[in-house]
């Protein structure tokens, strides 16, 4: 008997019955349209099939080649954050009815996914203080790039202004998306924003900025609007639970990374890009949108809507080529927020704030370590160290601590530290003690 594979549905007898019904001897006869000289099944790079048990062993060994993760002893953030994820999130999100369903084009049999998405859109608009939100983008970086493209469409101006304090990795993504459409990006220092009227489609600001600081949002918003540009904010949704929402400052488009709200850090993905805007720009928004309507009986129900913006209808004139909404990550974020609730989310934000401020005070009291941030911050800040961050992080690793992000390419001996509710006084004190002895 030929080797059988558990993921293939047909038994050998069924395969033979199909061939017999089709009146052919072998499945080869179904591939005759492929020119014979190009039939090629050489898969020499791929090892032979292994059992499920062998697979578990193999992957476990591979995962153990990574550092043994201990988030409470890890102090790195910079766009991806360790948070505690309640049990409800994975246990509900891994239900097959959510996990293995398709995009909810068939609304009659997709009300679960559709209603969750409506909830998600509602939560995003509330967190950001905006009118409308879509169902999700790939992640924070590309979401920001799409916001810049949208601003150009709205204003019909193909030049954008951007504060130099946004994440370097987001700058890179912006360039990759904007350059091919010949859109110029002008980076400006926070204290030196110079925008002529109608010169720029938007001003892009990160909130808090890459170095953790809260920018002067009111002044930046006014500057953008006075020059007839949109005010585009890339915002940490958790920071916006404690600090004012970007919408409070008159932001026109708000985007951000949703990973911190219940999504595993998972070496960088999958995450979810959040995307919200003022309702007047709704029809220029990229991505999937769910709306509430009624069915034939008049019962309320949910459905994908405003699809004429999207690629499967509008093709080359669509607002974007995006065809996914990271729905599963959106589900996780919705379960996370529902589980924590208002008070839980406020406590997490508060815990991030106080842990970071306690740590900043303790670290900056060590000889030679200086806190760089002069503006208020949330849960990240920069320390200029007396010696190379590389050496510091190496010494920390020896005692099982993952230090902050080495940003010495931007700030002399700079480290960007991050603190969340996952840290305790004990874990922070241990970091501080070890920093005392790196010299």
């Amino acid at each position, binding site marked *: 008997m030929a080797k059988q594979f558990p993921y293939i549905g047909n038994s050998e007898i069924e395969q033979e019955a199909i061939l017999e019904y089709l009146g052919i001897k072998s499945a080869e006869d179904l591939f005759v349209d492929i020119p014979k000289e190009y039939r090629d099944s050489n898969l020499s790079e791929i090892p032979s099939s292994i059992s499920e048990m062998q697979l578990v062993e193999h992957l476990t060994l591979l995962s153990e080649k990574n550092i043994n993760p201990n988030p409470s002893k890890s102090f790195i953030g910079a766009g991806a954050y360790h948070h505690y994820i309640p049990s409800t999130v994975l246990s509900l999100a891994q239900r097959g009815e959510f996990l293995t369903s398709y995009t909810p084009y068939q609304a009659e049999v997709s009300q679960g996914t559709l209603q969750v998405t409506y909830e998600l859109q509602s939560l995003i608009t509330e967190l950001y203080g905006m009118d409308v939100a879509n169902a999700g983008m790939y992640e924070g970086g590309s979401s920001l790039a799409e916001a810049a493209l949208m601003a150009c469409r709205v204003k019909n101006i193909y030049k954008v202004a951007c504060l130099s304090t946004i994440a370097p990795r987001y700058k890179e993504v912006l360039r990759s998306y904007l350059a091919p459409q010949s859109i110029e990006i002008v980076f400006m220092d926070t204290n030196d924003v110079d925008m002529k009227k109608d010169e720029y489609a938007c001003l892009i600001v990160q909130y808090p900025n890459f170095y953790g600081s809260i920018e002067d949002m009111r002044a930046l918003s006014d500057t953008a609007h006075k020059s007839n540009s949109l005010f585009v904010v890339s915002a940490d949704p958790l920071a916006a639970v404690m600090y004012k929402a970007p919408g409070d400052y008159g932001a026109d488009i708000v985007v951000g990374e949703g990973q911190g709200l219940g999504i595993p*850090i998972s070496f960088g993905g999958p995450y979810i890009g959040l995307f919200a805007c003022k309702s007047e720009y709704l029809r220029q928004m990229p991505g999937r949108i769910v709306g509430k309507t009624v069915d034939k009986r008049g019962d309320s129900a949910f459905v994908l809507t405003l699809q004429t913006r999207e690629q499967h209808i509008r093709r080359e004139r669509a607002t974007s080529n995006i065809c*996914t909404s990271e729905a599963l990550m959106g589900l996780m974020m919705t379960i996370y927020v529902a589980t924590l609730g*208002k008070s839980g989310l406020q406590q997490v934000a*508060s815990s991030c704030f106080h842990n970071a401020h306690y740590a900043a005070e303790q670290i900056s009291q060590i000889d030679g370590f200086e806190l760089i941030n002069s503006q208020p911050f949330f849960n990240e800040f920069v320390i200029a160290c007396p010696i190379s961050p590389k050496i510091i992080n190496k010494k920390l*690793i020896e005692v099982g601590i993952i230090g902050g992000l080495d940003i010495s390419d931007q700030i002399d001996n700079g480290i960007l530290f991050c603190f969340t509710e996952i840290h305790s006084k004990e874990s922070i004190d241990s970091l501080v003690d070890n920093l005392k002895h790196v010299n």
Partner: protein
Amino acid sequence: MSEYNKMPLLMDLSRKDKFGVSLSDIDVPLSELPESSLLREDIQLPELSQLDVVRYFTNLSQMNYSIDTQFYPLGSCTMKYNPKINDQLASLKGFSNIHPLIEESLVQGSLELMFNLQSYLSNISGMTATSLSTMAGAQGELAGVLMIKAFHEKQSNSSKRNVILIPDSAHGTNPASASMAGFSVKSIPSDQNGNMDIDVLKENANENLAGIMLTLPSTLGLFDNQIVDICNIVHEAGGLVYGDGANMNAWMGQTKLGDLGFDVIHINLHKTFSTPHGGGGPGSGPVCVNDTLLNYLPGPVVQRNSNVYEFVEMPDTIGHLGAFHGNFGVLVRAYCYIRALGKEGIPEVSKNAVMNANYIMNKLKHAYDIGFDNRSICMHEVVFTARKQKQNGVKGLDIAKRLLDYGYHAPTMYFPLIVDEALMVEPTESESKNTLDKFIDAMLQIADECENNSELLHEAPHNTPVQRLDEALAARQPNLKWSTK
């Protein structure tokens, strides 16, 4: 199924000061808060008990169709079984709890997995190298055409090559991606066999041609046997050939697009390599290139240097399209799928997928017309047309909705655009003849209903949590969030 009318929203269930998980107390000395003008006054979020949350989402899940519960004959979407073990292994702490920016020497396991997956995908597609960084099929497409653009610009600063050709049967993402890359798009018609009209291609093979975006087999489920000629014509005119991997389940382990003449393709790991669709993402859309485009791959790419793995950037890279390294959690699942099947299993996948599609086509071709009926075999999917049923006033939409009543997901409808009343069926290798026979019976019964009881179809579906929706109302008066005021 739950009683739909009784399904509230989170805010309707909210009760002041409830919460669903206990958190640790803050144990550091409290710091002074920033001035209040910077702080938020209030936020409206749901407040529920843990059981409220569990019941709410469990009940919602039961309003979905899914692969775990139903057969999804959804053409072009490759809704195959998503192995459970892959989800478990992607959740191993050593993968799921690793920050993306820690030093490479500390994440050698993740990098080794990525390196090997790159080489597996290059091998299967017949290409030189692969970047795993692109996070969806459409983003893979964008990366592909951006590479073509960068290539031409490198050849000549004043490159006039600004046209991308796309067959009229293509997915909407193709023209949208070309457009995002700053190209103008020209559509190529199909001939009466469902193949590309070669004469039109030749007319457009000129000094403005940047490249062509092809799906193979085409979205009609047909393998264009002129494919090598098409690649040659484009190359001779100085253009490059992009392959949309949407239909890879038909050829994986049977042929290689790199050998056929493609310069760059993207692969949908969420289709061919069995990672779950998740109700609309996350996907993953790695791009594979030949020598011509090797230096242009999006970053980062994993390389091995004397058994140490590291991230590198290619010299002429189109840059990064996301902040980190792609959808790693999806990559783990695809890696597991390839290892479980091994080199012996991969050709069995495409073989069974194609056998199943041909079985359905032949069983149903007397009841439903075929989109292009002068081809005796199809690849992994078959496009029917409801043109016969239309004479009884029944649309493709009605048939698709009626299938929901029988407990099947609908086929893909009205796509490809060039087939009237299209119903596109893709069974995948996951389904058995046993399941297909039941589906075929349902389709035959529906064909019968079309003739004898067409009213039943106009009103379908009848047995689902909700009935047909007022989509016009949704678009006319957008209600996109709950109101908190």
